[in-house]
């Protein structure tokens, strides 16, 4: 099924506690989307926010949410059988590029990447999956990636599970020992910037999924602009050819007023 231009009431099928901070919410929706695309989720009377899809099989979709602000905390209270409202999917997802793929995810950024890894495996790609988190209780989709046939390389900032250190350090080591054609990344922007820099140094492809404050989702309000590109319509996934030229990537974002803030 195509795109929902305006909000559609969608029933919650299942809620899964993924780790200490994150839950996946599965919704009864036949929309089709590729990994990296996002939906706007509306809770009437509260707010509407973008979430990249962590699951989509043509009959149901999933989003995976960390409880951080009032909206995501409310999402964590949602039970099976309740309704959420969605529109979308919007934007461009990850495009297949190269044969040997490194996937680098940090924290909540792993949400669309397990979905991506499943697609990559289906398409016969060799996948290295670096799954990073602050601590072991915040690791996401370790088993799911394993089930897809990829043994994740786990790293935590505090060393409570897997390698101790940042995902980017593990990625640099991976590049030194394996042939990688393209890296796909989603997570904190500082991490993604580092991944892009490593890919530039190593002259390999890269795609990163960016996040900005959004309003319309379809390219008219301009709120989500990074330089001249609109994250909602030109992105949220951008190729390295674009990322390497973006002055605001890794440095500047806009708040709800439209004022610039340092990242």
């Amino acid at each position: 099924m195509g795109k929902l231009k305006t909000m559609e009431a969608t029933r919650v099928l299942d809620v899964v506690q993924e780790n200490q901070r994150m839950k996946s919410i599965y919704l009864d929706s036949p929309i089709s989307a590729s990994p990296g695309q996002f939906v706007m989720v509306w809770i009437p009377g509260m707010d509407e926010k973008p979430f990249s899809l962590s699951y989509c099989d043509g009959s149901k979709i999933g989003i995976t949410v960390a409880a951080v602000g009032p909206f995501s905390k409310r999402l964590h209270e949602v039970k099976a059988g309740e309704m959420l409202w969605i529109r979308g999917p919007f934007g461009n997802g990850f495009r297949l590029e190269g044969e040997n793929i490194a996937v680098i995810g940090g924290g909540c950024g792993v949400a669309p990447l397990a979905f991506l890894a499943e697609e990559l495996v289906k398409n016969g790609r060799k996948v290295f999956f670096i799954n990073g988190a602050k601590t072991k209780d915040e690791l996401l989709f370790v088993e799911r990636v394993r089930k897809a046939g990829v043994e994740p390389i786990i790293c935590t900032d505090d060393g409570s599970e897997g390698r101790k250190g940042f995902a980017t350090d593990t990625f640099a080591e991976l590049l030194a020992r394996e042939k990688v054609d393209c890296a796909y990344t989603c997570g904190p922007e500082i991490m993604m910037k580092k991944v892009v820099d490593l890919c530039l140094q190593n002259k390999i492809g890269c795609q990163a999924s960016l996040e900005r404050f959004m309003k319309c989702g379809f390219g008219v309000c301009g709120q989500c602009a990074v330089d001249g590109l609109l994250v909602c319509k030109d992105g949220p996934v951008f190729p390295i050819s674009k990322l390497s030229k973006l002055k605001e990537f890794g440095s500047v974002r806009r708040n709800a007023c439209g004022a610039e803030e340092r990242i």
Partner: protein
Amino acid sequence: MVELGVELAGMHLANPLILASGVVGVSIWTLRRAVKGGAGAVTLKSIGPKPRAGHPNPTVLEWECGVINAVGLSNPGVEAGVKEVEEAVKSINAPVIASFFAEDAEGFGAVAERLALSKPAFLEANLSCPNVMREHGIPFAYEPESAAEAVRAIKRRVGSIPLIVKLSPNTHKLADVAKAVESAGANIINMGNTLGPGMVINLEARKPVLSNKTGGVSGPAIRPIAVRCVWDVYNAVKIPIIGTGGVSCGRDALEMIMAGATCVGIGSALREGGFNIFKKIASEMREWLDANNISSVKELVGVAHG
């Protein structure tokens, strides 16, 4: 070769198509991209006295025949705004229009004075936002006297930069408002802002979808009304008009011009056409003019009144 260039209050525009305020005009980069996409001039998102977050989401939505929005004048405030306008003027290869708003007439004068320091090609007084009535009351553009008072306050402080006044289709006193702002010193009228306010209710939620409940309606659905408003204003005043409302192709733009517009604002059409919508509309205009043996678009301004 068909000529699309026009003069607007003494300023030359390569073509009559202007990026409307509030549409992708949050950053200098996107404005630059609109010029690259063929815009003859670009308008920044309205700047007010103080930083404003605007309304919570949902703020902008598509519906079957257009867009409805209640962004609520989110902006970084005039302090940051002055710098943005300055940078825009320096780096954009087309006239830059600085749109602004305030809560009262004197406030309009004060913000205009600050923005004038950045030397935009035009100032545009947004007297017609339909989405902040709970805070700011009835928009200035609904009443001839309050509209004129705001224009006088601006003109007292800023004489040198041509002033565009953005009016509202949502008044039965449109001709009187247009005459009042003209005699108060407005140089150009932008006709105009979004229609309504309107409302979209989601049945399953049993609630209006916009957090502000109501919002300004734009897109193809409002074009006939916008054309009629331009017609009425053309009959009422001598100053040039920017016709804005639902234009998405060359024929739509020429219709606005025949109704009396010198320039044409483009907004919601970017959702389908992206930044290159300006080039597409301009080439469709050229084609029509060429097929009809008209050498300059200027010949068509107001011809429907003949």
